[in-house]
């Protein structure tokens, strides 16, 4: 890795170069579903070349490596086969793994190189370990909350931000003193421990629903720490992969916070969850019109153009397959059915796309918000399935609303709006939704899966 001369070293570096190019192409090909599969192949080939190249290093003892690789594969397979609804926590978990790898390598390098290590290297190494450490615990916390092993609701206390700040400061102080006296090895473990603790405290005050944004952020951190590791090991491949991963995480969290109308700094400094506090402010008093599956089925089959608006509720209820049946039933009757995808519908970017794709709904029926918003006025029925905030007209009109300014799907412009949800409870943003009280809105109370199921039965005349 350290660039000594020698034919093998050159060969290895060239393999790394090819791998880097393949990684870049792999991401480039994700630009469209038609090329995305090539993207994976490119990534896989690149990975094989890189690992193969590394094994060429002289004087390596292979048996341990082999065992580790096999073990990893054994753990990896189940992680690759989790249910689609578990993807968010899986992603968080793998961030933890990635960061763990970086942190361990960083620590090992520290003990191998100190005391005679250049200051710059020591600085980068500290960065690597601190970023890595906080990402490990942070991601684990996030995974726990998403898996609902840990309490979802944000845990806040007085002076929380101060404590966190002091911790981070402490870690940095140790880092600096290590840079100045790389001899003081005994300090190193404390730096790592503080980083780990910081990761935990950083996530505690954040509500479960905000995890996706946090996850992408941690994704970015993981990337940065990997890049830092690349600096330490003078591995260009690592630097490139880390930079790619870092920018990806950063961009996704920016997209999300934009779509949630949160300033990015607000996201960065985890001041969310607070929104959650104001939860359930919905006044149940005002009257709403509700309908039965029979009525809903009748209205749907009478319609020409239907737009389905899926949301987090569809994911929770695992209703995507029933929705597919509904799509088939209506399409068979000549109804034009499309799906309106809000960028932050659900709980992670692209959440709805994956679920609906899983249910075999062709992706060219899934229309992005900006494209489809214009069509709602010419739409007979907008069927909202477990979505709430992303349809809340208050975001357009009511400047006092916490989600004011967040771009939404203009379902209220459709001739008829039908909303499937279990109650009048608010969604993630914890605010009431004026949509439900409009004259052209019908509430369909019930679990998404069950309710859609009964609509389908109605449509297929009781046999379903």
């Amino acid at each position, binding site marked *: 890795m350290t660039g000594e001369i020698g034919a093998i070293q050159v060969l290895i570096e060239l393999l790394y170069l090819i791998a880097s190019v393949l990684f870049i192409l792999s991401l480039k090909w994700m630009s469209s579903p038609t090329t995305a599969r090539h993207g994976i192949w490119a990534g896989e080939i690149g990975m094989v070349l890189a690992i193969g190249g590394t094994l060429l290093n002289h004087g390596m003892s292979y048996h341990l490596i082999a065992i580790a*690789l096999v073990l990893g594969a054994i753990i990896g397979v189940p992680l690759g086969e989790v249910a689609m609804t578990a993807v968010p926590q899986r992603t968080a978990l793998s961030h933890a793994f990635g960061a763990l790898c970086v942190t361990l390598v960083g620590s090992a390098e520290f003990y191998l190189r100190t005391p005679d290590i250049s200051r710059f290297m020591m600085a980068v190494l500290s960065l690597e370990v601190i970023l890595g450490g906080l990402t490990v615990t942070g991601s684990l916390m996030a995974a726990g909350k998403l898996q609902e092993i840990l309490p979802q609701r944000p845990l806040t206390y007085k002076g929380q931000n101060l404590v966190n700040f002091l911790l981070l400061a402490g870690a940095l102080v140790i880092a600096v003193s290590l840079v100045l006296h790389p001899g003081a090895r005994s300090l190193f473990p404390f730096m790592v421990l503080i980083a780990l603790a910081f990761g935990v405290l950083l996530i505690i005050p954040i509500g479960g629903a905000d995890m996706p944004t946090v996850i992408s952020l941690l994704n970015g951190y993981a990337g940065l720490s990997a890049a830092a590791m690349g600096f330490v090991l003078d591995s260009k491949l690592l630097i490139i992969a880390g930079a*790619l991963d870092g920018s990806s995480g950063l961009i996704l969290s920016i997209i999300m916070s934009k779509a949630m109308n949160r300033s990015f700094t607000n996201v960065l400094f985890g001041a969310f969850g607070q929104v959650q506090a104001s939860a359930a402010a919905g006044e149940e008093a005002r009257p709403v019109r509700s309908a039965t599956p029979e009525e809903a089925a009748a209205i749907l089959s009478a319609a020409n153009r239907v737009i389905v608006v899926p949301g987090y509720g569809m994911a929770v209820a695992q209703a995507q397959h029933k929705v597919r049946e509904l799509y088939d039933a209506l399409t068979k009757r000549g109804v034009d059915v499309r799906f309106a995808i809000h960028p932050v519908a659900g709980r992670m970017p692209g959440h709805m*796309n994956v679920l609906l794709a899983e249910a075999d709904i062709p992706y060219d029926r899934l229309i992005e918000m900006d494209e489809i918003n214009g069509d709602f006025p010419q739409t007979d029925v907008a069927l909202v399935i477990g979505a709430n905030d992303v349809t809340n007209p208050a975001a357009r009109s009511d400047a006092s609303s916490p989600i004011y300014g967040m771009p939404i799907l203009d379902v209220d412009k459709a001739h008829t709006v039908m909303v499937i949800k279990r109650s009048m409870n608010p969604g993630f943003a914890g605010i009431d939704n004026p949509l439900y009280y409009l004259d052209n809105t019908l509430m369909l109370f019930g679990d998404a899966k069950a309710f859609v199921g009964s609509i389908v039965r109605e449509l297929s005349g009781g046999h379903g």
Partner: protein
Amino acid sequence: MNSSSNLINALFIFVLAGFIGFEVIRRVSPLLHTPLMSLTNALDAIAVVGAIVLVGEHKSTLSTVFGFIAVVAATSNIVGGFLITDRMLKMFKSSRPADKSVTK
């Protein structure tokens, strides 16, 4: 080779790669943001190369142990990441057969 010029090289690489990252990721279809996450996950696990060297060179018990765990962790990300990304992408089907041939 001396570290200051190494640092410079590394910086150049980092900046260029970062730029490419932004250019490329910005153009990833929102349809694929979830697979994108798991893909970058797998790619990021390339850190495994560093860990492999640690284990292979066997310089100290600690470095070997740390390296071993690191390899396990990273490998599981590689395997798991590619697997699930592939599974997700398999699911994306177009109603136009043209695309099917490619995505299937």
